[in-house]
C-alpha cells in the first residue's frame, strides 16, 4: 500500500464543481480516497494551482506517420536534444520529438493522458509499440475508418448494423479506442490521386458520399455504446471556403447521447475558412461557433496554430499533396490498403503570411466565441498547428485580451480586416481553462468513469500542481506568469506516483492503454462471416489471423467492454 497526501492545494476540479478551493488530496494505491494514514508521504502544494492531470484529446505522438515524420527530419532532431541521465532516456527533436521526448515534455506540463489522433488499423501494432515507449501518459487510439472498404460497402447497402459489426471487430482486433474519420471518402479517392470536395460527392467506385459515411458511423457508434463519439476530421481541410462543408457536416449530426456529444469535430480552425482563394481567405469562426452554440451534440477542438516551424501530418493524403505543391519542401505520403491514407510535410507558420495570421486568429476566435468551454477544447492537433509545448502560450492568449492585442500588433496588417479577433473582449478564467484542458476532454472522450479528468474520491490520482497562486495572479495583465506557470509543474503525479518534479522526470513510467471491446450478437459478427473473411484474404496483403494486435503489446492494457444495442 502506498499513500500520498497533497496538502494546501488550491484545487480546480470542474467536474466536481470545485473552483479554487484550498484543500488536501488523499491518495492511496493510485486512487483518490477520503483520507490516508499518518504514514503517508506528504507533498506541500503551498497554495498553488492544483488540477486533474492534463488530457490531450487530439495529438499525434505515436505510430507509423509520426515516426515517419521523425525519420525524415534529422534537421529537427538537432533541436531539443538531451542526454541520458538518471531515469531519463535520451531525447531529440522539437516538433517531432522522440517518444521519450514527447512523454517527458507532456509530463512537465502536467499532462497524463493522451489520445493519439490517428491509428491505421493495419499498422496498429506499431502505435502500441510506441505507446509503451511513451511511458508517462495513459494512451488511447483513435482508429481510422474513413476509407474502410467494408464499411463503405455496408453504408452503401444501408446496413448500419453491419457497419457496427465491422467497427466492433476492428476496434477489438487492433485494440483501438474510438472511431476516427479523416476526410471520409477522400482518402479512398486519393488512392487514385483524387479527392472529394463536398460531403455529397460520390466516393469513386463505392457509390457512397462522405455524408452517408458520417451519418452511418454516428449511428453505429451509438449502437455500440462506445465511450467516445465519432471523431471527425471534416472534408476539405485547409481550403478557403470550407466553412460551408463544416456547417453542412454539423447539420447532419443528431443528438444521440445524453452523457456526451455525438460528434467530436477536430482541429476546427483548419475548417473555418471563408473566401474562395488564398488571396481572400477570411475567418468564419463566428458562423462555426454559432452553429456549435446551438448544438450540444457537437464538441470541437481548436486546432490552434502558433508561429514557427512545425510538421503537418495527417491521414488526409490529398490535402498534404496540395500543401506540398504550395511549399515544395519535402513530401511523404503513405496510403494504407483498404483503410486510409496519410501525408506528412514540414511547414513554417509565419507572421509575414496573411494566411497564417488569419489561421492564428480563427483558432482563438473559435474558443472565445464558443459559450460553453466544454464544447471547444484546447489543442493544436500537435504537431500540425504547433508542437504541444506551445499550449501554455495559448492558455495565456485565452486568458488575456492584452496579450492577444500585443501579439496582434505584430501580425500582418491585413489580419484585422479578415478576422474579428481584436474585437473580442472575453478573457477565460482558471475554471474555463481547466475545462478546456482536462475536464472537458475527459467528458468528451468518455473517460470520466475511468477516473480521468477529475479529483473526486475514486478517481485516478493523476494530479498536476502548477507554480501559480491563482488568487494572487491577474491573468489579464500578468499573463507571462500564467504562461510560465503552465510550462512546468511543481509536481506531476501519475496514478499516485510523482513522475515529474520541477521539470525533472524522476521515475520510469508505467502507463496504461485504454481500448474498447464492443460485443455484438453472433449472428451479425463479421469474424465468422465467410464473405468478410474471403474479401479480407483476397485484398489485404496480410492474413486475417496476423491482423489482430496480441495482448503482449499492451502490458497494462485496460479493456472497456460494451454491449451493443442494435
Amino acid at each position, binding site marked *: 500500500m502506498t499513500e500520498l497526501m497533497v496538502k494546501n492545494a488550491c484545487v480546480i476540479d470542474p467536474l466536481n464543481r470545485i473552483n479554487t478551493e484550498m484543500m488536501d488530496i488523499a491518495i492511496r494505491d493510485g486512487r483518490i480516497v477520503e483520507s490516508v494514514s499518518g504514514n503517508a508521504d506528504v507533498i506541500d502544494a503551498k497554495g498553488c494551482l492544483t488540477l486533474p492531470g492534463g488530457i490531450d484529446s487530439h495529438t499525434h505522438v505515436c505510430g507509423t506517420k509520426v515516426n515517419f515524420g521523425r525519420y525524415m527530419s534529422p*534537421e529537427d532532431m*538537432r533541436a531539443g536534444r538531451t542526454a541520458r541521465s538518471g531515469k531519463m532516456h535520451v531525447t531529440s527533436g522539437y516538433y517531432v520529438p522522440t517518444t521519450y521526448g514527447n512523454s517527458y515534455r507532456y509530463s512537465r506540463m502536467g499532462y497524463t493522458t493522451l489520445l493519439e489522433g490517428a491509428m491505421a488499423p493495419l499498422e496498429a501494432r506499431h502505435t502500441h509499440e510506441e505507446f509503451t515507449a511513451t511511458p508517462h501518459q495513459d494512451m488511447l487510439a483513435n482508429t481510422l475508418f474513413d476509407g474502410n472498404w467494408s464499411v463503405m460497402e455496408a453504408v452503401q447497402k444501408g446496413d448500419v448494423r453491419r457497419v457496427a459489426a465491422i467497427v466492433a471487430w476492428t476496434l477489438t482486433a487492433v485494440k483501438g479506442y474510438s472511431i476516427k474519420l479523416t476526410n471520409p471518402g477522400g482518402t479512398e479517392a486519393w488512392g487514385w490521386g483524387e479527392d472529394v470536395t463536398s460531403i455529397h460527392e460520390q466516393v469513386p467506385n463505392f457509390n457512397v458520399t462522405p455524408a452517408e459515411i458520417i451519418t452511418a458511423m454516428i449511428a453505429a457508434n451509438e449502437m455500440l455504446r462506445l465511450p467516445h463519439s465519432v471523431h471527425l476530421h471534416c472534408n476539405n481541410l485547409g481550403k478557403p471556403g470550407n466553412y460551408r462543408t463544416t456547417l453542412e457536416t454539423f447539420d447532419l449530426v443528431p443528438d444521440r447521447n445524453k452523457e456526451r456529444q455525438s460528434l467530436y469535430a477536430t482541429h476546427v480552425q483548419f475548417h473555418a475558412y471563408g473566401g474562395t482563394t488564398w488571396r481572400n481567405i477570411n475567418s468564419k469562426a463566428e458562423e462555426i461557433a454559432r452553429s456549435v452554440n446551438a448544438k450540444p451534440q457537437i464538441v470541437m477542438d481548436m486546432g490552434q496554430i502558433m508561429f514557427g516551424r512545425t510538421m503537418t501530418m495527417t491521414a488526409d493524403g490529398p490535402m498534404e499533396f496540395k500543401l506540398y505543391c504550395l511549399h515544395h519542401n519535402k513530401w511523404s505520403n503513405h496510403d494504407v490498403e483498404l483503410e486510409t491514407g496519410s501525408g506528412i510535410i514540414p511547414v513554417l507558420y509565419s507572421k509575414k503570411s496573411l494566411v497564417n495570421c488569419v489561421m492564428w486568429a480563427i483558432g482563438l476566435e473559435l474558443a472565445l466565441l464558443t459559450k460553453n468551454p466544454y464544447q471547444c477544447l484546447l489543442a493544436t492537433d500537435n504537431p500540425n498547428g504547433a508542437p504541444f509545448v506551445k499550449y501554455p502560450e495559448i492558455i495565456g492568449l485565452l486568458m488575456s485580451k492584452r496579450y492577444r492585442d500585443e501579439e496582434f500588433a505584430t501580425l500582418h496588417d491585413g489580419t484585422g480586416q479578415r478576422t474579428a479577433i481584436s474585437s473580442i473582449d472575453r478573457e477565460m478564467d482558471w475554471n474555463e481553462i481547466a475545462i478546456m484542458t482536462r475536464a472537458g476532454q475527459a467528458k468528451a472522450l468518455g473517460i470520466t468513469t475511468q477516473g480521468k479528468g477529475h479529483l473526486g474520491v475514486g478517481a485516478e490520482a493523476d494530479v498536476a500542481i502548477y507554480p501559480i497562486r491563482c488568487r494572487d495572479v491577474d491573468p489579464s495583465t500578468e499573463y507571462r506568469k500564467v504562461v510560465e506557470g503552465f510550462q512546468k509543474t511543481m509536481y506531476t503525479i501519475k496514478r499516485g506516483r510523482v513522475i515529474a518534479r520541477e521539470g525533472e522526470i524522476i521515475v520510469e513510467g508505467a502507463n496504461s492503454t485504454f481500448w474498447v471491446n464492443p460485443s455484438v450478437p453472433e449472428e451479425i459478427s463479421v469474424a465468422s462471416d465467410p464473405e468478410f473473411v474471403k474479401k479480407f484474404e483476397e485484398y489485404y496483403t496480410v492474413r486475417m489471423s496476423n491482423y489482430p494486435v496480441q495482448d503482449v503489446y499492451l502490458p497494462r492494457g485496460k479493456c472497456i467492454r460494451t454491449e451493443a444495442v442494435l
Partner: protein
Amino acid sequence: MRVILETKKCSKPFLPIEAESIIPRNFLKGTDLTVYEGNKERALSELFWIFVEGTAVSPDKVEVVLKGDTSRVKRVGEYMDTGTIRIVGDIGMHCGNFMSGGLIEIGGNADAWLGREMLDGSIICRGNAGHYCASGYRGEKHGMKGGRVEVMGNAGDFCAEYLTGGEVYIHGSCGDMAGVEMKGGQLVIGGDATRPCGNMKDGTCMIFGTVHRMLPTFTKTGTQLLPDHKVAMEVYTGDVANRGKGTLMVSSRVPAR
C-alpha cells in the same frame, strides 16, 4: 594573443576528438576547456600541450594555432564568430561548421564537411578538402549561406551541396556531383568536375577544367568571354529537371558532352 595547441601522444590515436571548444573567443577566459575523446570528456590539457603567448582584450585578436596530428580532431572552429585559427597540418571533419566570422587557415588537408552550413567568415585550405566541402546537413534544405571557402587543392564528392550563398573556390578538381542542389551563391572550380550541379535551382557555377558527364538537363544559352580569366565560357541554364534557373559556365576549350 596567440594560443598554440600541440597534440600529445595518446594510447588510442585513432579515437576521434570532438573539439568545438577550440574557437578564439573561448581562449579569452583561459585554457580551461574540455573536449571529447570518444565518449570521454577530457581537459584540453590532457590531449594538447598548451602554450599561450601575449594577451588580448577582444576575441578578434586571438589566434589559435594547432600543431601535430590533428587529422582526427573534429569540429575545430564550429560556431566561430571572430579571430583566427591556423592549422599547421591536416584537420578532421566539420572544421568551421556554422562559422559566422573570422579566418581559418589549414596548412594541410581538411576532412569531410569543411565549412558545413557556414554563415560568414573565411576558410582557406592549402591542401585538399574531403567530401561535402561547404555543404549542408542531412535533411536540411539549405547549405552554406555566406562567407568564403577556398581550397588550393582538390575537393571530394558533393562539394558545395545545397550552396545557398557565399563563395566556394576550388583551385583543383572536384569529385562527383559538385554543386548538386545548389540554390544560390557562387562555386568556382579551377580544375575538372564530374556531373556538376544536378538539380541546381539558382546560383552560379564556373568550371575551368574538363566537365565529365555533363548532365543532359542543362540548356545551352550562349557563350561569354570572361576577361579576368581570358577564357570563353559556354553558358548553360538549369537544372531543367528542377525548373532550375541556375547558371553553369563551362570553359569552352573542351567538349561539354
